[in-house]
């Protein structure tokens, strides 16, 4: 469990990036942090990952104050993947990059090798890439290497800052499905993103930031229903959510949900029922509450 208690953060130039932020995160949650540019999301994430120290307030991880952790111990609790993975990749081969954490821990060679293999496997980094320089890989692969280098520390919680920025839809889904899989294996996942269709499809809880404070903290559906606080935070719900409000007066979060629910409605009205084929529907997605 991560408990953030009344933290404040000032950068050295006097910028007040966080102002009295409190949040409790249970093990195994899947949370999206959203909000305006400059609202403090990255600063907040860096504070819980121990990269920045809050100027005031405290953070407890499994009951223990983050201040009393050694750097290496933090890395086993929480991993943070940078907004721009290029700020994080510094080794000249992918293998060195992925093994750097475990090497710092001075783990036995055999264990290091094992961890690199598991992490690469989960993150989808092919062994063929091990000797390549991360710089020459595509954005999508560089990000996978960055994630693998975090996973090799086997942290309980993983924070990924803008995992889908610059990725096409297939790549985005593939990164997100892989985070979903980690979540099912009981890892806590936090993502920071401006892509609301990704939030709608994957996050169960949404924390909305504005001006260094938390404006709202609720289930994804509740947050996307409150147009006024979203507007204040310069966020728009997914287009399909606006559309379904306008035409059906309902809040649907994804295209899948819209299509399935509408189909049920049409059926219950005993109207003509066109056969519905959708590759989106086959893949599953956010269909937890279809039954009602």
């Amino acid at each position: 469990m991560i408990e953030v208690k009344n933290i404040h953060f000032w950068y050295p130039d006097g910028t007040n990036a966080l102002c009295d932020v409190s949040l409790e995160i249970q093990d195994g949650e899947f949370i999206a942090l959203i909000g305006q540019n400059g609202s403090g999301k990255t600063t907040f994430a860096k504070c819980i990952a121990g990269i920045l120290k809050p100027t005031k307030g405290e953070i407890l991880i499994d009951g223990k104050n983050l201040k009393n952790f050694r750097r290496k111990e933090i890395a086993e609790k929480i991993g943070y993947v940078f907004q721009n993975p290029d700020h994080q990749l510094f080794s000249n081969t992918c293998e060195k990059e992925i093994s750097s954490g475990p090497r710092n821990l001075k783990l036995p060679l055999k264990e290091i090798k094992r961890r690199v293999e598991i992490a690469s496997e989960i993150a989808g980094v092919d062994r063929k890439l091990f000797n390549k320089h991360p710089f020459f890989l595509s954005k999508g692969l560089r990000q996978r290497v960055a994630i693998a280098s975090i996973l090799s520390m086997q942290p309980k919680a993983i924070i990924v800052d803008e995992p889908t920025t610059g990725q096409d839809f297939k790549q985005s889904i593939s990164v997100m499905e892989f985070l979903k899989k980690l979540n099912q294996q009981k890892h806590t996942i936090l993502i920071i993103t401006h892509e609301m269709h990704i939030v709608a499809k994957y996050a169960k809880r949404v924390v909305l930031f504005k001006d260094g404070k938390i404006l709202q903290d609720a289930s994804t559906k509740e947050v996307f229903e409150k147009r006024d606080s979203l507007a204040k935070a310069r966020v728009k719900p997914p287009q399909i959510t606006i559309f379904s409000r306008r035409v059906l007066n309902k809040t649907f979060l994804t295209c899948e949900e819209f299509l399935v629910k509408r189909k049920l409605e049409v059926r219950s009205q005993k109207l003509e029922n066109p056969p519905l084929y959708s590759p989106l529907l086959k893949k599953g997605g956010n269909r937890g509450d279809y039954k009602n």
Partner: protein
Amino acid sequence: MKNPIIEFKNFSWKYENAQDFSLKNINLKIFEGDIIGVVGANEQGKTTLLRCLNGLIPFNWRGTLKGGVRIFGKDILQGSIEEFSKKVGFVFSDPDSQFTSTSVEEEILFGLENLNLPIDEIKTRLKWAIEEFELEGFLSKPPYELSGGQRQRVAIASVVVMKPYVLVLDEPTSMLDPDGKSEIFEILKKLAGEENLTLIIAEHNLTELLKIAERIIHIDKNEIVYDGDVQRFVDEFDYENLQIYMPEVSQVFWHLKKQKNIPFLLEDAVGKFQK
């Protein structure tokens, strides 16, 4: 017929250390006032195409070039980046790779000062950029002490403020918040109307892009597979495969078996659905 301002003829490009050609057999004419969206999955050649529009290719990247490109009538090999850049402004997808100054204000002024404009004009434009891009709060900050989205805003502003004839933007709004994305596209559209700017924008966010684009170039496997108007692009798109995330209203209409004139703007979709 009008003359194109940029023209590709049987153009191919292979980066020095690459196995294959990153662009193959490109034939393309860009006309003054065009608003072009360049779309496609990752690694298909969007950025490579944009780099040819101001001479970054072949002057900053080495490789093999076949065929030709003319920029304002001049063969690309006969010119230089400096020369082309006077007419063609370029916003990089990674803002960090664009910054040269230690404060946001200097960053905006840097390009303007190189244009040899009268001092009053420089002041007017600086003021305009600060207002339009909402930079007031962090003028004296170094760009690298800004949040990701704030950096991207500065990067766009510092090029747009020069008001070049042609503006090339590579994924300009990838890190902006949802309202910020809309605002930038609105600013671009307004400028295009007022100053007869030509816009070429590579973008993964089609919901915003299609609000302003008048022509779509779809690049797939290093070739142009579609070049034409927006409606036909939306109608003919392969929704089963969804490599590109189309506007959600288009996806829904396609699934509801609407095959022609699929809407791609929210208002249109609302109107059509109610009918």
